[in-house]
């Protein structure tokens, strides 16, 4: 029997039996972890409320063996709220759909339970904080998160220099398979030619230049979102379920 303590973001909850839930968290030190929270659907304590999606919580786990992730699901025995992002996010439907796509993305990029994914974790915490603060268009916050998630998982797209030969940008052609923009020499069949503004926007989102991103016109934002979605789908085996519900 061992106790583990970690902090994490609740990604998903599933009903289990009469009144329990399985909680999926992305934790700081143990990566993605699934745990059972008993009685949370009928309790009057605040335990259940703390373990809702988007919550940043400090959790204590109880396991039979010596490893947090191994045989059988750990029990979630205590939790303290660090930041309840859900309240602000769920009050705005656009925020909610964008936020849900972030949670699913974080889950998909942390395939192996128990394997630390600290960069992905930090990205998610930062993105949820930004989303809940409401300072930027939710769709932009989502696209920035998707691009940076791709980057920390080894799929950094290029929006300036040629992704194949490195020729200094700007380059006009874009191919998801090639890894971003490519020059005229390296262009592959099926490449598209996005607007200069859309490519600038994506570069700004990847680099954290919010001033440029916030000033972008809606049609270029939509174009950029389309490119991000295509790039993401290329690198994930299955499509994201929640992406089609994100409001444009």
């Amino acid at each position, binding site marked *: 029997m061992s106790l583990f303590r970690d902090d994490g973001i609740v990604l998903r909850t599933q009903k289990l039996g009469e009144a329990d839930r399985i909680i999926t968290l992305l934790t700081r030190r143990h990566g993605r972890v699934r745990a059972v929270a008993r009685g949370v659907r009928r309790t009057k304590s605040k335990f259940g409320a703390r373990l809702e999606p988007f919550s940043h919580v400090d959790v204590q786990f109880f396991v039979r063996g010596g490893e947090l992730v191994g045989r059988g699901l750990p029990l979630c025995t205590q939790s303290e709220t660090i930041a309840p992002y859900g309240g602000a996010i769920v*009050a705005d439907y656009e925020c909610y759909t964008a936020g849900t796509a972030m949670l699913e993305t974080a889950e998909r990029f942390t395939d192996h339970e128990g394997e630390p994914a600290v960069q992905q974790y930090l990205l998610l915490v930062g993105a949820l904080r930004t989303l809940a603060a409401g300072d930027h268009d939710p769709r932009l916050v989502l696209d920035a998160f998707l691009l940076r998630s791709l980057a920390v998982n080894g799929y950094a797209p290029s929006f300036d220099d040629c992704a194949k030969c490195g020729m200094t940008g700007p380059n006009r052609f874009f191919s998801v398979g090639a890894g971003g923009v490519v020059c005229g020499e390296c262009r592959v069949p099926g490449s598209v030619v996005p607007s200069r503004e859309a490519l600038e926007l994506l570069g700004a989102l990847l680099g954290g230049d919010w001033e440029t991103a916030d000033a972008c016109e809606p049609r270029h934002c939509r174009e950029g979102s389309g490119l991000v979605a295509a790039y993401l789908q290329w690198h994930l085996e299955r499509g994201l379920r929640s992406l089609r519900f994100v409001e444009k």
Partner: protein
Amino acid sequence: MYEGVVQDLIDELGRLPGVGPKSAQRIAFHILQADPADVRRLAHVLTEVKAKVRFCKVCGNVAQDELCRVCRDPRRDPAVICVVEEPKDVVAIERTREFRGKYHVLGGAISPIDGVGPDDLRIAELLRRLADGTVTELILATDPNLEGEATATYLARTVKPMGLRVTRLASGLPVGGDLEYADEVTLGRAFEGRRLLDV
């Protein structure tokens, strides 16, 4: 693994919500040892319920006829509709005796991560009910958890142009919980103290 029909029974039971493989096995062996008359009665109600019970064509609640008991009752106030996720929530609210209006059962809550969006719920049917102007208040009684809140947010935004009074059950309900587990007193109080939603 068990032989043929026993395993089939365990498999079927295991597909029920909240029944894991161990429980399925336990129920299966309970049935095997039960009195044949008891088992025949169980099999009979299972067939009956599928043959006789349908969903109310107005509100989506369970019904024995085209309309459910609430929709048929002329004493119920047609100006107020209480929106819930499941038929079992109607039962929970009816127990409080606090509500005299009608219901609308959505058939779930919006949960994009599970692939459930607004079009998968009975929202278009609700909007059709609101179209003729009879309804003046919409009470959003979706579960007090994240998906329930998101569904309430979506509905409040969608009906906003119609100029209805849109309210949400007061806090005090167990947050993160299921509506059906709220006791009558708490649920009744939540009804009385419902708050106006402004999105």
